């Protein structure tokens, strides 16, 4: 009974966050893409790019709406489902949560302005400037919430007295050791994912219909951005691993099935564990774990043996980590392949195979976000605040949590379905070609190829 409420609380939170994070990631990254497209459009005086910005924005408002309502849900659920956690941690981490609200506020106000003022100013830069607060607001929401999550992993900025937190320093709590790498990785991966998804949508359009200039420009832009942010994401991921090696070694060890502390540790990919906790069927890259953890092939990497077994994170996080990293290498690979093909005169970079790969990389990027979060959150188990409070201690005692889980599941199914249906209908009813004529009638018609 007791455990059941805890399990249901975990499932409810995992489900809400897993759903919110999709829309939150779009909320962080898409405004940057929109802004870049609009800026290029104004600079080059090219209506194609401005139309791109307009159409992305139109889809974006729909996902924002879902992001806002699911975010409101998770915000309230933190208190409803984890009352003991909020009662204790609220003393230390309410500052970033509070500041996050201001970031939303800022974002919401300027999103309203941006949406309804496309043709209101003679100087087009004025409209473009309104996109900046949206990027900043979305970005800072991510930064602030990530500091909260970082705090849960490496709590800092307080002392304890008889089991309660005393002498709180809110700034130190925000700037805990996990914050820098986490913020860096969360931001870059959000930008990467949005670029990859927009590229995937464009490639999908090209596959389905004819290739127009509009779509080709969109594809080139989004793939360029995918490549840049994929490289940054990998750098950030690498620094996250280096952070873990020092501050949260059991999380990295669980991801790598690294049981014994040793020098020159190998990196394991996939495989499975036998009963004696030995990896079977894995791909083994010699000494690479030491390199990932410390940038030195012979460094000593702490193993799980140094953590009491009842405090081990679940070992299946290995797969989450591997899948994320694999996708992390695939994404820049796909983008690179496209640019190589486009440089080779004889090859057509818009062939079916290439486009299908690009279409695939969009969903893959979003999956990497999900895998990454599941890894990060499960890898912290059994703690909710590492070293201070376990998940079990934090959960609600209310017996109705199971029922709430079912209600929210139904809600997310409905929201998710309607969101996709609405988006598809929106773009099917307004093809880009028609819209180009409507908004920019003087622009010469697309030359088709």
């Amino acid at each position, binding site marked *: 009974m007791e455990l059941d409420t805890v399990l249901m609380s975990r499932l409810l939170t995992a489900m809400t966050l897993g759903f919110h994070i999709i829309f939150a990631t779009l909320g962080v990254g898409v405004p940057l893409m929109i802004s870049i497209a609009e800026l290029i459009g104004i600079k080059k005086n090219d209506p194609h790019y401005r139309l791109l910005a307009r159409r992305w924005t139109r889809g974006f408002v729909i996902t924002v*709406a879902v992001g806002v309502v699911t975010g409101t849900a998770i915000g309230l659920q933190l208190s409803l489902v984890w009352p003991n956690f909020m009662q204790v941690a609220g003393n230390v981490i309410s500052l970033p949560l509070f500041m996050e609200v201001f970031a939303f*506020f800022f974002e919401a*106000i300027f999103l309203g*302005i941006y949406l309804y003022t496309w043709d209101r100013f003679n100087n087009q830069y004025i409209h473009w400037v309104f996109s900046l607060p949206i990027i900043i607001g979305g970005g800072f929401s991510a930064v602030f919430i990530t500091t909260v999550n970082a705090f849960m992993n490496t709590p800092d900025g307080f002392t304890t007295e008889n089991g309660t937190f005393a002498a709180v320093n809110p700034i130190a709590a925000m700037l805990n050791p996990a914050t820098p790498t986490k913020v860096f990785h969360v931001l870059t991966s959000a930008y990467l994912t949005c670029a990859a998804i927009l590229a995937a949508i464009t490639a999908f359009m090209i596959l389905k219909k004819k290739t127009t200039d509009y779509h080709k420009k969109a594809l080139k832009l989004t793939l360029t951005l995918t490549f840049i942010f994929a490289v940054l994401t990998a750098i950030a991921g690498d620094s996250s691993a280096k952070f873990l090696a020092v501050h949260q070694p059991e999380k990295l060890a669980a991801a790598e099935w690294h049981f014994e502390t040793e020098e020159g540790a190998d990196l394991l990919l996939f495989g499975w564990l036998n009963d004696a906790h030995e990896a079977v069927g894995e791909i083994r890259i010699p000494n690479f774990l030491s390199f990932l953890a410390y940038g030195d092939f012979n460094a000593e990497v702490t193993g799980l043996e140094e953590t009491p077994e009842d405090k081990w994170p679940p070992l299946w996080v290995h797969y989450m980590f591997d899948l994320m990293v694999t996708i992390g290498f695939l994404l820049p690979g796909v983008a690179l392949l496209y640019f190589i093909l486009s440089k080779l005169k004889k090859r057509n970079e818009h062939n079916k195979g290439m486009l299908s790969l690009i279409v695939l990389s969009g969903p893959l990027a979003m999956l990497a976000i999900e895998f990454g979060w599941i890894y990060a959150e499960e890898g912290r188990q059994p703690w909710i605040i590492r070293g201070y409070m376990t998940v079990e201690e934090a959960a609600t*005692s209310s017996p109705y949590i199971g029922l709430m889980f079912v209600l929210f599941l139904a809600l997310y199914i409905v929201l998710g379905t309607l969101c996709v249906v609405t988006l598809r209908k929106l773009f099917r009813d307004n093809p880009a070609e028609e819209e180009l004529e409507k908004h920019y009638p003087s622009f010469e018609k697309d030359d088709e190829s």
Partner: protein
Amino acid sequence: MSYEMIGIFVLWIFLYGYLIVASIDFGAGFFAFYARITRQDHVINQLISRYLSPVWEVTNVFFVFFFVGIVGFFPETAYYYGTALLVPGSIAIILLAIRGSFYAFENYGSKQSTVYMFLYGATGLLIPASLSVALTLSEGGFIVEENGVVSLQYLELFTSPLSWSIVALSIVSVLFISATFLTFYASRAKDYPALKLVRKFALFWSTPAIIAALTAFIFLSQHNRGHYESMLDLWWMLGLSVGFFMTTAWLLYQGKYYGMAFISVMLQYVFAFFGYGIGHYPYLLDPFITVYDSATHESMGIALVTAFIGGLLLLIPSLILLMKLFLFDADYVKGKK
């Protein structure tokens, strides 16, 4: 003023802000739906969507601000209210989620659907009803703590006249505030057919609004004597509230100065809401938590107040810009932009 007092004061102001902007939003949803089924939608729905489209997200943030702020300043509230409100709170979240997203699907998507309109209208009344449960709980008597387990007494809640009178009050207030605002907005837009209709709504809902307020007050006197008596000590605030109510009704009836009418309705609710809130002091949840024993650490309190001031410096100019562009830009209001 101590940081706890600043905290509760600021939060109460924001809750009041939410009360006004959300009432406008919720009520407008209901009126839009009502107009659709009575085939009057061509008269007012254009007006409603022009105002609501740019601001609905901002309304939501007021609410987020309040609940994040109260847990921040008074973490103890998370423990009691969080546990007790799991069910009503979750229902409110689901309704809010349906409302917000369906609004976007209908408005930004290309589909016009009566089902969406219905959900949008119905949630407009159900959300205030479910949120008002929190106010009822704060009066005490519905939450018990046994062996460290907090639980909500559902039977008592559902059979309490106080809780139903607060639900009724919240719904009619939403309709009254919203109709008064729309009257003002229509008059600014010089949209006379719409003005005629929404003014009718406003006049219609004024009487139930004051009756519901008095009823709730009477039931409060039976349920929580202490709160009732401290509110009576603030008789002048309640008196002013009633005075502004009469001014609003008179202005609406006269059919002039709709801007003044809306200001007057805001003042009516300022005095009622603050009279209620100050009378509640020092309890956040009678009898478990007070403003003082539940407050966060001083350093956090100061940090929050500082963040708040910084945030305001950022937000006020932005909000002014938003209002200039949409609410007070005569051409926009009239639909020319």
